[in-house]
Every structure is written in C-alpha cells, then in structure tokens.
C-alpha cells in the first residue's frame, strides 16, 4: 500500500462514518477492522486503546449533557416532541461510535506507515507543494508543543511546583503548567523565526526536500479503496432501507 492509497482509503472511510448512522456504521467498522487486522495486526490493540483514550472523555461529556441535562435527542428537540433519555442515549452512542471509527481509522493508517519518517510519508503524497508545506508546518507546530510540554514539565517538577504523576498538588498548580507550556512554545517559535529561519531561508528548503510523490496507486490501494467505497454504499443503503 502507498501513502496516497492510505490517505484516500482514510478519506473515504471517514466520509462513510460521517454520513452513515446506526446500522450503516457497521459496514465501516467491518472494513476498518479488516484493514487493522491485515495491515497493522499486532498493533490493533494499541490502535483501539488510543481511539478509546481520545473518545472516552468526549463520550462522557456528551452523556452528561445530552442524557443527564437535556434528556432528549436533537431530532426530538427539532420536532418539538416530548423526548426520552433513551433517544438521547441512542444519539450519543451513534455520535460516539462515529467519532471512534474516525479516530480508529486515522490511527490505523498512521501506524501502517510509522516506519516512515514524516518527511518520507509527506514526500510520497501526490498533492500540491503548498499542501505538503502546510502538513510539515502543522507537524512542526505539534512537535514544538510536545517539546514545550516536556520542557515546562521538567522545569516545574525540578522546582517542586508540580509532581510527576497524579496528585492533589497538581490540581492546584496544573494551570501553571498550561501557562508555562504556552510561554515556552511561543518563545521557541519566536526565537526560531527571528534568528535561524531568516538567516537560512529554512522554509525554502522544504519544497526540494518534499519534492516527489508516487504517481500511481498500487493494486492494494485500489482494493482498499474499493472496500471503503463499498462500505460507504452499503452504509447508505442500510440507512435508506432501515432508517
């Protein structure tokens, strides 16, 4: 499978998850599971765990709001119906399942190519140079934030202001970590843009470094793309046939 095929597969699978609901999602789940088991087999568990970690807080929040506070689904609100908590629960379950599938597919595709460096993956994509630049700058920003978290955390732990791991102290002082991370990130980027980048014209090095891209999709790409499209179509049929 090529990076281009993986990106197209993910795009169609995500589209399917967004437009399908209820039973329609089952087809998407089936293709995603097949992809994970055949492409990243030993790490499917890690992929599930990461998706759960991302989704669990959001699902809990939606449960509290829709089931606990509002007590009816958006459709019931729109139709001015009486509304039930079970309908609200079904709505939350559908949205959570949809988002879980999206996160799972993204994780699976990323893990499929985690032996490649980000540059190698982006270089292989057949997209305009501007899009490649944006991807690398986005990754750079994420990396800068991660590094800022590491730096700020080290500084505050060494000073005894926060502790490693969970503690009551961290509940009181955690906001200092957030403030210090932003301060560190902003000053890191500012320093980079003030000294290193203007001198070297570093951003201009990106285009030649990312130049290239595979022109054709491979047979496995077409296979997975076909399965994703089939899942999308089946999902739509199930929605149409059963509501």
């Amino acid at each position, binding site marked *: 499978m090529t990076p281009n095929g993986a990106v197209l597969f993910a795009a169609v699978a995500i589209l399917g998850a967004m437009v399908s609901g209820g039973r329609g999602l089952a087809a998407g789940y089936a293709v995603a599971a097949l992809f994970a088991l055949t492409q990243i087999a030993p790490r499917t568990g890690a992929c599930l765990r990461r998706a759960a970690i991302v989704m669990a807080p959001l699902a809990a929040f939606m449960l509290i709001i829709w089931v606990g506070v509002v007590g009816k689904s958006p459709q019931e609100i729109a139709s001015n119906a009486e509304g039930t908590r079970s309908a609200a629960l079904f709505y939350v379950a559908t949205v959570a399942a949809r988002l879980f599938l999206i996160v799972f597919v993204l994780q699976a595709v990323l893990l499929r190519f985690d032996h490649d460096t980000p*540059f190698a993956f982006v270089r292989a994509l057949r997209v305009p140079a501007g899009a490649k630049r944006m991807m690398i700058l986005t990754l750079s920003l994420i990396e800068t934030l991660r590094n800022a978290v590491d*730096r700020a955390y080290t500084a505050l732990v060494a*000073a005894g*202001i926060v502790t*490693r791991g969970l503690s009551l102290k961290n509940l009181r002082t955690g906001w200092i970590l957030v403030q210090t991370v932003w*301060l560190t990130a902003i000053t890191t980027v500012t320093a980079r843009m003030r000294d290193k980048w203007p001198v070297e014209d570093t*951003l201009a090095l990106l285009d030649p470094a990312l130049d290239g891209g595979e022109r054709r999709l491979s047979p496995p790409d077409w296979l997975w793309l076909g399965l994703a499209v089939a899942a999308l179509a089946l999902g739509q049929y199930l929605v149409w046939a059963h509501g």
Partner: protein
Amino acid sequence: MAKEFIAGPNFSGRSEALLTRLRGGAQGEQRAFFIGPYAEAALSGLSSSVADEIALYRARPPRARDVFSRLDPVAAGARKPQSLSGGEQVLLALHCFSLSMHDTLGIDTALEQLDAVNRAAAIDYLSSGAFDALLIDNHAAPSGWRQTVRPPSPSPAFVIDWAALNATVVPRAAPVIDIRRLNFTYRHGPTIFRDAAAQLVPGRAYRLFGANGAGKTTLLKILVGALAPAASEIALDGKPYAPWRGGGAPIAIATQNPDQQWCGATLEEDLERRRGALPAGVAIPDIPKLAAFARALGVSGLDQHLYELPLAARKRVSWLWPLAGVHPWLVLDEPTVGQDAATRENLAALLARLCAAGHGIVFVTHDENFARLLPHAVLRVENGGISSL
C-alpha cells in the same frame, strides 16, 4: 575561504554582529547557515526525526565536499532532534551544514557544548572546510583565523556585583547523596545507566565528565526528580530519596539551556512560585533578599520579563536560585556557556566559597578553563556507569 573569529566580552554586540553578517550574506548569492547555542537556534524545528533534519538540509544534487559526521545518523536517525543532548544537537547541525547547499556557516557559542574530542574535530572541520565561517566562542581563537575584537559596550549592562554575591554565602549542612543503584533508559531511546553507583559528599564540587550524549544531564535531572529512574536506590544521609515521586528535592538546578527552567513569565513570578514550592525543612527566602540577589546578578528589577533579556543575561539569571543558597546542593549544567572569561573566573570563585561553606555542588562542563579554576573531584559518566577518576 574567509575564517573569522569574533571576540569580545558579553553584551558587546557579538551575536548581533554575527547575525547581521549572515543575513547580509543570505540576501546576496551566498547562503548562510546558523548554529546558535540552544535547540531553537541549532535545529530547524521543522523535522521530528534526525533523519528528516538531515533530509531537509541535504543538497540536491549532493555537493562534493567533506562531510562532518561525528553523530551516527543511522543510530540516531529515528530519534527526535529535540531529544538529543545539547552537544549532540550541535553535532547534528554541523552534519546538516556539511551536506547542505549553504556556503557560509555562522556559529554563536555553540561549540562550547562539545566535548574535547568533538570540539577539536569541529574546529578542524571549520578551519579546513571550503566555506566561509564566522565563529563566536569564549575560548581561544582557532589558529590562522582572522580575529575581530568587539569593544565592551560604552554603557555596560548586566554588570555583576561579585562582592555582593560573595557576601551572601552562609554556612550550610548538606546531606550525603548516596547513589547505590541507578538504572535509566529513555522511552524509545538509549539506556543511559545500568546499576550505576556514586557517593557525593557535601562541601565538595563534583564534575560530571563524559562524551556528548553520555548521560551527564540525565543524571542531574534524576537528582532533582525531573526524570524517574526504574529499579534504583538513592539515599540522602541514609534515608531513601525519590524526589520523582513528589515531595521536592533539596537540590537546585541551573539547566544547560536557561529557558528550560523558567516557572513564570517574569522573574518575580518565577521566584514567587519557587518559594511556594520549597520542600519542608527548607527556609523560605524573602523577596527583598532575592531582589537584592537579582540586582547583584545585574538584573535591574523583578518585573523583568525573562525572555526579553539577552541570552547571556538569561543564563546568569538561571544561576539565581542555585546560588542564592536556599538549597544545600546545587547542580549546574554547563553554567559557563556563552559567558566571557571574567564571568567564568568569578563564578568559579563564588562556587568554591559555597563549597567551603558546606554546600555540595555537581556540575557539568566542557570548559576546561572553568574546571581548572574550581577545585573538584571528577566523576566519569560512560557506558552506563559512573566512576571516580
């Protein structure tokens, strides 16, 4: 090929002169490459692996010139550039330059983080390479280089009152640090310590000595609780010591990159937060005393925004908390990077006074001149162990 060494004291405008020259070159036909003293100025910030950093700078088609390769790009390829030690980051930047299209190399005090072997190799490469080089360094100029000496600023800023700092030194009773068994492996990274052991007695200064990437900074971070070792046993005066589990450490640190230790935007905010987090049994210093200390370090007011200070001044401010004598043990990581000869001499004298007063000091330096000025014992960090020399 022009090789120029820019000499002068701190705050004489050396860094600005270097950057101005490099920017001027960038607008012309020459393409300039800049290596500053810390990660923000040594690395591109665009790549999340060493392999990508190299790929970014690699010239296409490759240039026929000597490749500087003191960092194994295969072994380090998957590591994040930011996870490398300060010295390794400089080696990576030099490797990237040697592969790049750039014709001019400017280095601002970055070579001060290299061990003796790597430094000699870097100087040799800079001296013989077919490119223009501009170097700021607080050590002797490489032979054969043209030297430009910048005069001291006519209106001196950040002047340190060493007499006032020395007057603050008071006797302390510091505990013995007994590292009986130390194991540490970075997640997705190398193993640094395997059952390492050492004993640190107060009233002495210990120099951690070893190659770039050997684990000197890692040891300092473990001692202050910023990194958690696995299956390890450390004691303070015989009692188990595990600051990474919370509870604070009686050890103050000055990090290699001063920007890695700020706890607030202003000096006042930073100090207030540190005061509020001191472990039980440590006397909390009052703000007027700390303000006087900051003034003695050359910083006019506590409302000073830390990131508005020049780098050399930030480095000095990073000494404030350790030198204020609040903690019985001080650990200093490359304290003299970017500091001129006079400052290094006075700092060594002050640290010697602190030792004589009972404090314990652990420091990392590749600055032999500074090490000669401060009486110390040497602990060699290599191959997963710590040994006395």
